[in-house]
C-alpha cells in the first residue's frame, strides 16, 4: 500500500492516535511528577517509616516491567473487584513507573547541592521549611531539567503499552498493529508512527535543552 492510499484511508486515525499518545503522555507525566515529588519528600523526611515506605515504592516501580504491571492492573485487579477502564489502567502503569524515576532524578538533583550550602543557610537562621523552599527546591529543580526531559520522552515510550489492551481510540503503536493485521500497511505504516514518535521526542528534547540553558547553574 502506497503512502497516499494509506494516508487517505488511515490519515484521520493517525492524527487521533497521535493525540491519544500525547494525551496519555501529558497526563502520565503530570501524575508521575506529583507522585515523584511526594515520594521524594518522604525520602528526605526524618520519619523513618516513611523513608522505608518510599524506598520500597521506588524499588518496586523502578524495577517492574511495564508489561507485568499492566497485566496486573488489567487482568488481576478485577479478581479483587477493582474494575478500571483500559485507559485508566494504561494511565496508571505509565504514571507509576516514571514516578519512581522522577523521584530518583529529584534526589540526584538534591544531592548536587552540597551540604555546605545547607549548613550556611542554617547558620543564617533559616528554618527547615525555608531551607527547603528557598535553597533546596530551586536548585534541585534547575539541575533536574535535563533528566526530567528524558523522563518525559521515556514516559511517552511507556505509553506504547496502550497497544496491549483494546483501546478506542488507539495510540500510535496500537494503530500500526491494527493496520498491519487488517490490511497490508507494510513499512510505511510503521514509519509514519515511528516518525511521529521521533518528532515528538526531538521537540521535547529541544525545548528541554532550551529551558536547561536558561536555568542551568554554572558551577
Amino acid at each position, binding site marked *: 500500500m502506497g503512502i497516499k492510499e494509506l494516508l487517505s484511508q488511515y490519515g484521520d486515525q493517525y492524527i487521533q492516535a497521535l493525540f491519544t499518545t500525547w494525551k496519555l503522555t501529558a497526563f502520565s507525566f503530570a501524575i508521575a511528577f506529583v507522585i515523584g515529588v511526594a515520594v521524594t519528600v518522604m525520602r528526605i523526611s526524618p520519619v523513618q517509616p516513611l523513608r522505608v*515506605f518510599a524506598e520500597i515504592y521506588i524499588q518496586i516501580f523502578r524495577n517492574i516491567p511495564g508489561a507485568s504491571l499492566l497485566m496486573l492492573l488489567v487482568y488481576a485487579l478485577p479478581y*479483587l*473487584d477493582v474494575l478500571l477502564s483500559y485507559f485508566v489502567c494504561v494511565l496508571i502503569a505509565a504514571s507509576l513507573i516514571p514516578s519512581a524515576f522522577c523521584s530518583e532524578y529529584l534526589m540526584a538533583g538534591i544531592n548536587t547541592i552540597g551540604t555546605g550550602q545547607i549548613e550556611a543557610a542554617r547558620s543564617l537562621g533559616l528554618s527547615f521549611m525555608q531551607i527547603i523552599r528557598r535553597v533546596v527546591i530551586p536548585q534541585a529543580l534547575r539541575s533536574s531539567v535535563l533528566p526530567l526531559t528524558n523522563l518525559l520522552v521515556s514516559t511517552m515510550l511507556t505509553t506504547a503499552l496502550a497497544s496491549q489492551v483494546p483501546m478506542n481510540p488507539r495510540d500510535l503503536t496500537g494503530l500500526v498493529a491494527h493496520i498491519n493485521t487488517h490490511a497490508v500497511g507494510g513499512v510505511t505504516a510503521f514509519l509514519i508512527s515511528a516518525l511521529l514518535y521521533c518528532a515528538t521526542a526531538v521537540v521535547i528534547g529541544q525545548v528541554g535543552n532550551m529551558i536547561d540553558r536558561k536555568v542551568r547553574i554554572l558551577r
Partner: protein
Amino acid sequence: MSDKRTSVKDALFEPPGPKTRRVIRIATVVSLAAIAALLWVVLRRFYETGQLDARYWSVFTRWTTWRFLGKGLLGTLEAAAVAGVVAFTAGFLLMVMRISGNRILGYISTALIEFTRGVPTLLFIYFFFLVVPKFGIKLPAFWKVCLPVSISACGVVAEVLRSGVNAVPKGQKEAAQSLGMLPHSVFLKVVFPQAFRFVIPALISELVIVVKDTTFAYVVNFPDLMQNAKVLISNYDALLSVYLVVALIYIAINWLINRASVAAAGRTNRYAVPAGKKQ
C-alpha cells in the same frame, strides 16, 4: 557517598531538640499506623474476594511450576544477554561513526541514534512480528524479541559510550599521539579502555531496560518468563497469584542488576561520570 553525615538528605536537619523529637515520634507512629492500615485494606480485599484461598497459591507448592517458570526465566535471561551483546556492538559502531570526524557518517549515526531513542520498543517488536515476515524473511521467535530490543537499546548505549569517551582527559590522547601511536590504536588501546571503565555502571543499568523490554516476548510467542506465566495461568486458573509472583521475580532480578551497577560505580567512583549527563 557512604559517609552518612555528608549526604544532603541528612544535613537538612540539625540534631532535633526535645520538641522536634516529640513531633518526629508522633509522625513516626501516625505514619506507621497509616502504612499498616493500607496493608490491612489490601489484605482484606484479597481475603474478601477469596484470593488468599489455598487453591490459588497451591500452584507454587509444585516442583513442576517452578521448573516451568525457571525455564521461562532462562529464556528471559538468554534473550536479554544476547540482546545486550547485540546492542553493545551496534552502539559501539554508532558511537565510532559519530565521533569519527566524518560528517556524513556523523549525520547518519546521529539520525539513527535519535530514531532508536525516540521509538518505543513495542513498535519495533510489531515491525519484526508483522512487517518483516511480509518480505518472506522467517525469523525464529528468539530473534523477533532480541533484534527489536537491541535496536531500541543501541542508541542509548552509543550515547553512554560517547559520554565516556568525552570524559577521558584530552592529555591521554595527546600523550598517546606523541608516542607515535596510530589513530586507531590511540582510540582502541588508550581512550576506549578508560572510557569503558567510566560507563560500566550506566551500561549495567541499561541492562535493566533490556530485561524489562524482553517481557514483550509474549507478543511473538517466545517462551520467556512472562509467556510461561501466561501458559501457567491458562492451565491452573490462578491468574492473580501467578502474575504477582512473576512481577516479584522480575523486580528481584532488576534490583540485583541495579545493585551490581551501584557496586560497579563504587569501584570506579573516582572516575565516574554522573548518570544522565549530556556532554
